[in-house]
């Protein structure tokens, strides 16, 4: 078998619109400052439907402040967020000159156009079929964000949508790696998006007791690894990166943040929502990613964990890490940035990949907040208090993402 890295894939652009900021840089600075993006929801539907959860990590910069009016009208919020993040990433990469037929897009979403779907359902019921917006279907379809990005940058090598719940954004980056490795494209714009701060998903997640109900203290609600954790905090936004073959990036003299060295994927086939308690599925994804990056497990010095702040999930991920890395587990600095960003579902893996790339590039790991009393069942080396410096020289990090349905995705990021 030829090496997986014969055609190395590098990151040349970053973009994000998140609960912490309207750009990747603003988000990164907020992470280093240890800020929480969770806040009370000031929407009339919160009291109207008597939702048991009254806060979320809502988007920091409203799309109306960034996009043209017609774009906000004709695109579902999930596509709007993706477009904002993609334009930032594309500009950050220096708008590479590339044959459109060698340029791809891969944007995942966990839920898709839920706002459009249900707004138009209301229109149908209240006003009749003529009042259903003619763009309802292209707005609600889950591939809408990938299509919007493809149209915007003129990507003709392929526009793809990965759907694997909370692993969608990471899976899209894995798909993009493959597009470049297999020779289908030289440049791919890849990421994830989610706009599901909507009463229905909130009620659904609350019904399954997945959400934190710490309504009095939103900023303290997302507390991965803490003994007081009681569920995740719903977030929204998008994160997108520009990936290129190293050859293409070098030829145009691009700034290279890091190498997106590999993706490892597996499925639990255990339960529709519960993670496999012993972590064997997730550990296989991690080890596969490490192997495909031509690394040994002991080469990984940092993990940006999935760590959603649910009582069961955080332990299961620890078990998977321990299973994959054994005694090396204690040597790796781990952070759970969902403590600040909340859980962006289909955008989470993409956002955490962006953060891991920033960590490797800047040699800094943002600290996990709200970790007051670490769960003794999760003896990870968690970065708390101040952010942590990563060593100079060649380093490698891992980013985990897991989704309802038993989807496990791990990405490795290597310094350049």
């Amino acid at each position: 078998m030829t090496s997986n890295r014969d055609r190395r894939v590098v990151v040349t652009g970053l973009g994000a619109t998140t609960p912490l900021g309207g750009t990747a840089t603003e988000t990164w600075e907020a992470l280093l400052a240890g800020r929480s993006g969770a806040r009370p929801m000031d929407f009339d539907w919160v009291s109207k439907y008597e939702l048991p959860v009254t806060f979320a990590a809502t988007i920091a910069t409203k799309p109306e402040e960034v996009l043209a009016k017609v774009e906000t009208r004709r695109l579902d919020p999930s596509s709007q967020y993706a477009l904002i993040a993609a334009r930032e990433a594309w500009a950050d990469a220096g708008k590479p000159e590339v044959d459109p037929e060698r340029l791809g897009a891969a944007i995942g979403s966990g839920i898709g156009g839920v706002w459009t779907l249900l707004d138009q359902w209301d229109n149908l019921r209240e006003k009749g079929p003529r009042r259903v917006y003619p763009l309802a279907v292209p707005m609600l379809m889950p591939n809408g964000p990938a299509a919007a990005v493809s149209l915007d940058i003129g990507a003709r090598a392929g526009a793809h949508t990965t759907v694997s719940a909370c692993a969608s954004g990471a899976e899209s980056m894995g798909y993009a790696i493959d597009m470049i490795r297999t020779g289908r494209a030289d440049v791919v714009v890849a990421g994830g998006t989610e706009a599901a701060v909507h009463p229905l998903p909130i009620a659904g997640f609350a019904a399954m007791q997945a959400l934190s109900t710490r309504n009095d203290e939103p900023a303290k609600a997302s507390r991965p690894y803490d003994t007081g954790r009681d569920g995740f905090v719903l977030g929204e936004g998008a994160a997108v990166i520009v990936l290129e073959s190293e050859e293409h990036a070098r030829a145009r003299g691009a700034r290279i943040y890091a190498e997106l060295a590999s993706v490892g994927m597996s499925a639990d086939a255990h339960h529709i929502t519960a993670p496999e308690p012993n972590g064997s599925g997730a550990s296989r994804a991690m080890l596969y990613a490490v192997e495909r990056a031509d690394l040994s497990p002991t080469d990984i010095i940092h993990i940006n964990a999935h760590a959603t702040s649910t009582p069961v999930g955080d332990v299961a991920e620890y078990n998977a890490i321990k299973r994959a890395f054994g005694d090396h587990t204690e040597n790796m600095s781990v952070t759970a940035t969902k403590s600040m960003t909340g859980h962006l579902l289909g955008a989470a893996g993409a956002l955490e990949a962006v953060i891991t790339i920033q960590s490797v590039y800047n040699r800094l790991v943002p600290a996990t907040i709200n970790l007051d009393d670490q769960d003794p069942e999760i003896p990870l080396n968690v970065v708390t208090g101040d952010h942590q410096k990563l060593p100079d020289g060649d380093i490698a990090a891992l980013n985990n993402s897991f989704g309802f349905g038993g989807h496990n995705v791990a990405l490795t990021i290597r310094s350049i």
Partner: protein
Amino acid sequence: MAQSEQEILEGLAEIVNEETGLDTASVEMDKSFTEDLDIDSLSMMTIVVNAEEKFGVRIPDSEVKNLKTVRDAVTFIGSAQS
């Protein structure tokens, strides 16, 4: 109550602006919706439905294909109101 051609034109221009982002001043009587204003069939359907609501008229689907210019739409709406 019937509105003047100018009132209908202005109201229609607002609807077109809302849907497409085109400047209201560009919505002139002799402009073709598809050729000059680059309005696709999906946007046209939205404009028609919004015009029905705004002007209190009914524009049958079979009529929409005949509304080639802004003047066609203004004239149809005016006669439907009277």
